[in-house]
């Protein structure tokens, strides 16, 4: 068990810089998920931690030891790859035993560890099979088993579920969560799937273009995105983002003028914004309500029925499209005009630079995160 500390870690491939000075503290036993759009550097960051790529600059500590110059096998890590990366010519048993054998463990010890891992993952019956005889889900279990037997201080997962079909993905996700509860090992998990991120993580690291946008618990990111990027990235369907102007500023509110004439008082700290500034108002589809006298109005363009709820895509003028999620079946048809009410306590305001305005002090937002998990944006 160990913590993982990154200090100003940078990575360049030739002239192209792909990781721009990442600082991150991952605590012992924590489950941290790296998310971000493709090409954001999340996999590269994981490979830097694994030692599969060289760190261009900065320091990496695992369990207090600086490991920049250590080979992967000496770092006390184990890695599960997206493509499973099982040795095709070895059977399941040998796949799991290979690392221990190279570490010169005794036969008895190897056998005990492999069988224990196989029991844990319920693949005891498959020990004599070659990888090609296994299904995708079974292969991924073997890959996880290969990681377990190494008894690593840190588990690294590189999009381990993306080659599995939907049902299997949910099942394996639950098993990985269980593995974490059972072993209490530090785990770092890379994914582009925010459902995986939200469900598995103790903390999520949102990466974009080689730097960290925000670090925080899943709910913290959902309820208090630090900036426009995180606001747009976390949550599905996406948060509605409405450009508007500040009409006035009070001590504990900011008044914005909405497109179409209305105005809205948002309960956030003004923190220096002034009347006339351009800001972006953010509100999730769940927090827009159809009501007879809403602050916004528009024409329903499209209705998507999902059974338990439905989505309305509303054209709010000037090509601006708002998404509304309402429970149950739709009561409005495409083409009809609706007016929308905004739940002001769920509104976010972002400066022109993209940063969120801080919430009111002592104001209990629905998330109410514990203070020690306060996010730090890089």
């Amino acid at each position: 068990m160990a913590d993982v500390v990154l200090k100003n870690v940078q990575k360049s491939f030739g002239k192209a810089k792909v990781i721009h000075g990442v600082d991150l503290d991952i605590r012992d036993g924590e489950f941290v998920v790296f998310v971000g759009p493709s090409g954001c550097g999340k996999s590269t960051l994981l490979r830097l931690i694994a030692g599969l790529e060289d760190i261009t600059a900065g320091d990496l500590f695992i369990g207090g030891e600086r490991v920049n110059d250590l080979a992967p096998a000496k770092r006390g890590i184990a890695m599960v790859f997206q493509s499973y990366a099982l040795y095709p010519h070895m059977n399941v048993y040998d796949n799991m035993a290979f690392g221990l054998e190279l570490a010169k463990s005794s036969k008895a010890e190897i056998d005990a560890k492999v069988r224990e891992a196989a029991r844990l993952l319920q693949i005891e019956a498959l020990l004599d099979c070659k990888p090609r005889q296994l299904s995708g889900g079974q292969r991924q279990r073997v890959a996880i088993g290969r990681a377990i037997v190494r008894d690593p201080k840190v588990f690294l997962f590189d999009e381990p579920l993306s080659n599995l079909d939907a049902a299997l993905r949910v099942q394996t996700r639950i098993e990985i969560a269980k593995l974490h509860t059972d072993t209490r090992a530090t785990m770092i998990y890379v994914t582009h799937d925010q459902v995986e991120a939200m469900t598995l993580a103790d903390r999520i690291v949102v990466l974009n273009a080689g730097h960290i946008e925000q670090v925080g618990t899943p709910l913290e990111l959902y309820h208090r995105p630090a900036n426009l990027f995180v606001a747009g990235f976390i949550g599905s369907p996406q948060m509605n983002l409405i450009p508007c102007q500040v009409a006035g500023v009070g001590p504990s509110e900011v008044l914005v003028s909405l497109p179409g004439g209305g105005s809205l008082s948002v309960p956030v700290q003004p923190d220096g914004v002034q009347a006339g500034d351009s800001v972006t108002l953010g509100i999730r589809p769940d927090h827009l309500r159809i009501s007879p006298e809403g602050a916004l109005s528009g024409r329903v363009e499209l209705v998507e029925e999902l059974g338990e709820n439905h989505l309305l895509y509303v054209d709010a003028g000037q090509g601006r499209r708002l998404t509304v999620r309402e429970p149950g079946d739709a009561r409005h048809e495409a083409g009809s005009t609706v007016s929308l009410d905004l739940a002001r306590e769920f509104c976010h305001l972002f400066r022109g630079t993209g940063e969120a305005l801080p919430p009111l002090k002592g104001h209990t937002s629905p998330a109410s995160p514990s203070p020690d998990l306060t996010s730090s944006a890089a």
Partner: protein
Amino acid sequence: MAGAVAQGDVFVRVAARRRRSSLTRSRIRSAWLFIAPSLIILALIAGWPLARTIWFSFTDANLNNLSDYEFIGFENYLANYDGEWLGLLTDPDWWQSVWNTVWFTLVSVSIETVLGIIVALILNATFPGRGLMRAIILIPWAIPTIVSAKMWNWMLHDQFGVINDMLLRAGLIAAPMTWTANADTALWAAVAVDVWKHTSFMALLILAALQMLPQDIYEAAKVDGVSPTRVFFRITLPLIKPALLVAVIFRSLDALRVFDLIYVLTSNSRDTASMSIYARQQLVDFQEVGLGSAASTLIFLIIALIVVITLAAGRVRLGEDPR
């Protein structure tokens, strides 16, 4: 703010000096260890002999005593004695061999390309016995060149050859022909054997390219009602062009160094000799290592030039990132 940037800069520079983790270091070290034996052997058996050949081409070395020679500059290539030009570049036999080789290469590679495309198109169609057919066309390729030449020699035999017999029966010729001894027909005979032996190589390379083509464009063409010949010339041919070029280049380089086929098939006369045959004749039969090496060097330069031009023109991507 500026101070922080400068500090970061120093940090990057210090870090750069020790940035290679032990994994990368040990991999690069082992890379050199792994290729060293091959490089040493290739330097010994290819680099060194090539260098010596080029060196010998500037000497009057003789096969009887290879250690006793004098440097004579370009005299093997071109020399002027009392107003009379001598040397390789003035030898009509050399130029005959150059012409023979170029003619042989152009004719045989052209025929092989056309036939190769036809055979590849046939093998690309699905029909019962396709696997067997692919095996059958590989057979000529696998037969040693010497053996092929001997087999054809026998078939082309002027008195008892089966080819004369067939042509006589068909009424195409009035009297038996001396195919391999006659300068007019001997090179055609060499082309025939080369085509027989190497069309399959061409066909297989083209077939591999054909099989990599996406199937849906053909379905789209079918839906659009494009005629098969148009599909071939407008879709297939442009798409397989890169592979076709590679195959043509490989075959051309091979044909330019032709030795054994012509050496065995034809009666070893200067009318049909290839460049390689000429060079070896000077070297071994006439013991003129200097002159033979000069011819060898010229052959090497000709082929090297062609390789360099093709590599530059085709921008064959080599050694790109293995990922």
